[in-house]
């Protein structure tokens, strides 16, 4: 019986969560809060030696362990959803229900951002309760490589330039229309190898003039 508790699939032991759940989650949260309050800025997130099952990255796992729990239905993209180890990891450490419909989710985890479904498929919140929308977390991002966009809005002094990839070709148009329906809309968190960035719905997007 003991082995069935400690292992999830036949020979894959369950990866550990935070060593110090209280303070590790707090430092991760402050990093997330800082980038959400300053759209387009990047912050190193301390993953505290997490080694989650692939394709879940340590940074994405740190965000998940910081924000998910039984109150937050989570949607996984196809590559994450096909990994039993990832689902077992999230279920065990966060208790979050994993849902099949993107519109039901509080959080969406995306490990293959190039094939991200349209942002409009997620919960956009209602006019009365815009806070009930989905927060979409894109993993495997590389900052500063792809063509950049210019950001303005709350949290940004004047303007800032932001570049991240991979994202789908129509992504920035979708983000711009997401902003157009403010206060409804989704919020985005970009998880890189060590850094994170965020784009709340309040940020206005325009192509960077060359």
């Amino acid at each position, binding site marked *: 019986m003991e082995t069935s508790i400690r292992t999830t699939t036949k020979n894959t032991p369950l990866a550990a969560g935070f060593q110090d759940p209280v303070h590790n*989650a707090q430092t991760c949260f402050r990093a997330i809060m800082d980038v959400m*309050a300053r759209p387009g800025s990047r912050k190193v997130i301390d993953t505290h030696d997490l080694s989650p099952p692939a394709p879940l990255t340590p940074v994405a796992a740190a965000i998940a362990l910081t924000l998910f729990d039984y109150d937050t239905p989570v949607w996984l993209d196809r590559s994450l959803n096909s990994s039993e180890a990832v689902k077992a990891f999230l279920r065990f450490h966060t208790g979050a229900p994993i849902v099949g419909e993107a519109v039901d989710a509080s959080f969406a985890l995306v490990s293959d951002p190039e094939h991200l479904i349209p942002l409009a498929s997620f919960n956009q919140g209602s006019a*009365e309760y815009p806070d009930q929308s989905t927060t979409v977390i894109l993993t495997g991002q590389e900052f500063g490589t792809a063509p950049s966009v210019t950001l303005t809005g709350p949290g940004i002094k004047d303007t800032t330039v932001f570049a991240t990839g991979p994202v789908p070709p129509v992504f920035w148009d979708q983000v711009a229309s997401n902003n157009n329906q403010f206060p409804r809309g989704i919020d985005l968190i970009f998880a890189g190898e060590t850094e994170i960035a965020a784009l709340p719905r309040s940020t206005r997007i325009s192509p960077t003039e060359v």
Partner: protein
Amino acid sequence: MNDTAEIYDQGEYNFAYLDEQTKRMIRRAILKGIAIPGYQVPFASREMPMPYGWGTGGVQVTASILGKDDCLKMIDQGSDDTTNAVSLRGFFEKTAGIRTTYETSEATVIQTRHRIPEKNLTENQVLVFQVPIPEPLRFLEPRETETRKMHALEDYGLMHVKLYEDIAKNGHIATTYAYPVKVNDRYVMDPSPTPKFDNPKIDQMEALQLYGAGREKRIYAIPPYTKVKSLDFEDYPFEVQKFDKPCGLCGAENVYLDEVILDDKGGRMFVCSDSDYCEERRAEGHAGPMAADPAAIQIGGATVEETI
């Protein structure tokens, strides 16, 4: 080691009192609040070991963001050593064992009841407000279902009617505190009962502002560098209070002053409401007209003790 540290080491409380699930729930509300500046996010406010009105909302927000390396400043009406500030500072010293300070520039998290420090805040600071009634439309429309619809439809005519009635009755906008603001050209928000003197500081502030209302179960936020406009009319523009005298103790001008009664013969003086600002100026050698008065020294001269 003092008593409070012992209690913390015994592990009687989780760090900063709240359990981790509660913190996660509040943290998610904070993130949504930041993403929708000025919108009031409902949250499952917990019962705290202090009565409503003491800042249960602010305390829950502070407890959720606080880390062991943070340095906390706690103010009540601008002062670090009034009852509310002392109790809540003691609460976090006891439950989180963190460093606290009186100095505005040293703090990383500042929880405030009804004032914003005179000194400019920086990008590395978070300002947490204690909010009694978060809904600016509540006294105009008591039904939550209706005010929620009004926010959804951006229907703020009623608020302008209220300000207009002020002018019709008094000749000027008589609202002096909890003066309604429009955040990011979208949501009308109550900046908590800070004097309207502080409204210009909220606009384009470099620090993140978080607002917590415990009894009303709402959290809202203003990110740094966000446009916050006090509502007014073209012919009756927004104005802050002006004081004809400088601070009696430190001589500061263009700061918010409190009236202090000195004796029962009509003696009184006006002093900075921000006690840390006043003390710092006096330490730098500034002196106001009342600084030499023996009655005034008794009030302003008390040296404060800090926990390091």
